[in-house]
């Protein structure tokens, strides 16, 4: 009971200290907030970038005797009106080229797409001069590139279908089979559908895509939004960095008490010294847990960060608390005075945090491989790796190894620090 009383007293002291609260909660949120606003600030999960406004002029017509259900121009046009692209493409039809160009000049639209009158006919006979014209606002870069890529992908699909059809007819004739022209539209449609799915799968896969231009659909989590992902990794880095500071500074209260005479006074009461030390340690644990919980909740509601599965989050947070508390207890056990503690902790924890990758947590592949190896020798590096895995959706079973490392190192550091304290205050 006295252990709890001492812990509660320490917590009261911590949470009444503007400096402590600033270090625990305000600083990590503020630093993350700065990065958040630097990225544009809107990260609610509904839209990750301004929609590209596309104007369309489709003059294509169905060629005579073509084995198509609709002109190719209609397929190209319809791409820009499907629901899956609606969050990031706003398309509108124009009646003639003059009005389309005026809209582009007046920046009503960012990209103009003109499909010429006989495009399907020329394309199907292999005329290389057949062109879909894409014009864009010169101040834009990503939007026009996306539109051009979509058109190219569609036409590649049609060309691929043509090649596939020729190959099929050649093989049938080689085997003495007369091709049934009635099936050709169905074959081409089947190929085109497969190709579209292939493209979608390829570019929507986070592991393969260089840049993801998709808004989350109903089945996806918010972490597929790159800005939220960056925010999540940034706040994870800040949370870990300041968790280790909180652990150490909470433990430094024992030095303050020693210097203020209250620790000696505690020793004159009928309270066991083990209970006194346990109270101090308990306060450190609770402080780091509370800090972590506050930042997780604030990160979710302020920045829209999805931290991952609850079980994984619990495991990562527990490991973080044990590692941060253990290192805090160990470091303070060797510090002689609170005056010495400030620079020692500031320098030591900042250096360990940097080596652990906390300053570049939002750029996981930005550092040389050697730095990633060095990070494995710091508690912060293991905690960060665990959070990265949790946020990437790794199953809990994959988290057990990093958790075991955090638990083991944390407990070893805690034990060594405790022994040093017992020796010091015996």
């Amino acid at each position: 009971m006295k252990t709890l009383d001492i812990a509660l007293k320490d917590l009261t002291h911590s949470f009444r200290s503007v400096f402590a609260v600033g270090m625990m909660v305000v600083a990590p949120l503020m630093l993350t907030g700065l990065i958040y606003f630097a990225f544009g600030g809107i990260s609610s999960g509904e839209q990750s970038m301004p929609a590209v406004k596309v104007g369309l002029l489709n003059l294509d017509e169905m060629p005579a005797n073509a084995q198509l259900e609709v002109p190719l121009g209609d397929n190209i046009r319809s791409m820009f009106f499907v629901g899956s692209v609606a969050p990031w493409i706003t398309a509108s039809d124009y009646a003639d080229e003059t009005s389309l160009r005026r809209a582009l000049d007046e920046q009503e639209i960012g990209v103009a797409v003109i499909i010429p009158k006989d495009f399907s006919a020329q394309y199907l006979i292999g005329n290389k001069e057949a062109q879909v014209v894409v014009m864009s606002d010169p101040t834009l870069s990503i939007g026009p590139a996306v539109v051009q890529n979509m058109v190219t992908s569609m036409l590649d699909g049609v060309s691929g279908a043509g090649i596939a059809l020729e190959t099929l007819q050649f093989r049938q004739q080689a085997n003495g089979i007369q091709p049934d022209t009635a099936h050709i539209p169905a074959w081409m449609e089947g190929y085109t559908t497969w190709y579209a799915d292939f493209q979608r799968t390829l570019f929507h896969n986070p592991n393969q895509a260089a840049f993801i231009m998709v808004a989350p659909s109903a089945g996806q989590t918010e972490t597929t939004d790159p800005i939220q992902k960056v925010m999540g990794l940034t706040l994870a880095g800040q949370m870990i960095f300041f968790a280790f500071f909180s652990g150490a500074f909470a433990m430094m209260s024992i030095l303050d008490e020693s210097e203020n005479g209250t620790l000696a006074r505690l020793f004159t009461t009928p309270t066991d010294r083990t209970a006194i030390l346990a109270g101090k340690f308990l306060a450190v644990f609770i402080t780091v847990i509370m800090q972590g919980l506050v930042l997780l909740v604030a990160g979710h509601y302020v920045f829209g960060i999805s931290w991952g599965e609850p079980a994984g989050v619990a495991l990562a947070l527990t490991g973080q608390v044990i590692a941060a508390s253990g290192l805090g207890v160990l470091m303070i056990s060797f510090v002689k005075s609170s005056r010495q503690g400030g620079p020692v902790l500031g320098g030591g924890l900042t250096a360990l945090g940097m080596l652990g990758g906390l300053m570049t947590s939002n750029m996981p592949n930005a550092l040389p491989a050697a730095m990633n190896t060095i990070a494995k020798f710091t508690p912060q590096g293991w905690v960060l790796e665990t959070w990265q895995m949790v946020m990437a959706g790794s199953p809990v079973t994959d988290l057990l190894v990093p958790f075991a490392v955090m638990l083991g190192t944390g407990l070893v550091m805690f034990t060594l620090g405790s022994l040093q304290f017992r020796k010091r205050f015996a």
Partner: protein
Amino acid sequence: MNAIEIKNLNKSFGDLKAVQDVSFHVQTGEVLGLLGPNGAGKSTTISMLSGLLNPTNGDATIMGHSVTKEPAAAKASLGVVPQDIALYPDLSARENLLFWGKMYGLRGPALQSRVDEVLSIIGLADRQKDKVGKFSGGMKRRVNIGAALLHKPAVIIMDEPTVGIDPQSRRHILDNVKELNQQGMTVLYTTHYMEEAAELSHHIAIMDQGKLIAYGTYNELITLVGEQTRIDITLNSEAEKILPTWRKTLGVSKIDETDGRITALADDSNRILPRLFDSAAEMDVRITSIDIQEPNLETVFLHLTGRALRD
């Protein structure tokens, strides 16, 4: 029964013998004043009694409980008022008292009512919600004392509780000590102020250089120096010039110089002073002030050690 019994207590820090074979006792219900200059061993002795230090040799008991063998029971009978303020400045006076009460095992309504009583005793009931960090030095000292009274200890040790405070708070603390003692509490009180020891103490113990050099009532200690008068003198030049001459002066039993002030013990100041003035004039030394005091605890210390009892 003795509330405090100290038997052959020793404490060494390496080669330094801070406390050497000290033995004395404090009877239940009395105030004992523990006197001595800095480095005399008072704080080390108190630290051993309160469980902060383990004796190198010897033992002590608080209400019959050995501080080495039954520390928890000894501590439960003891309230300690440290010399420096040992409180949490960011907690209010009430919060501080509640916390220290819990450390002595008090809980619930008993704790709340006892805190109310102590706040009343120390005269801070109307400031109980204010943070201690905002208090004056005297008010902090009163809370510092209050924290040691919460569990109604049989014995209280007060280490220089009136250092550096205003006369009003000092008076309040001295009255508190008397009142607590009248209620039956045994008090071990260390101080540099002779008048405090004389006013409060039933018995006085004097320590110097780790040893107990005198123990007794005020009157018993005064009789050690007989009828000697203490004479304090300041000069306009270095004391070393004239001290050898004055030491040989008939009727001067002890003479010492501290911080430019000469202190002498004389059997009869009326006869001695003219001789001192004459020799000063012969050596061209000017006496700038002179103060004659009847025998007191300072005189006793000077008599016993040959040195003045000053910081």
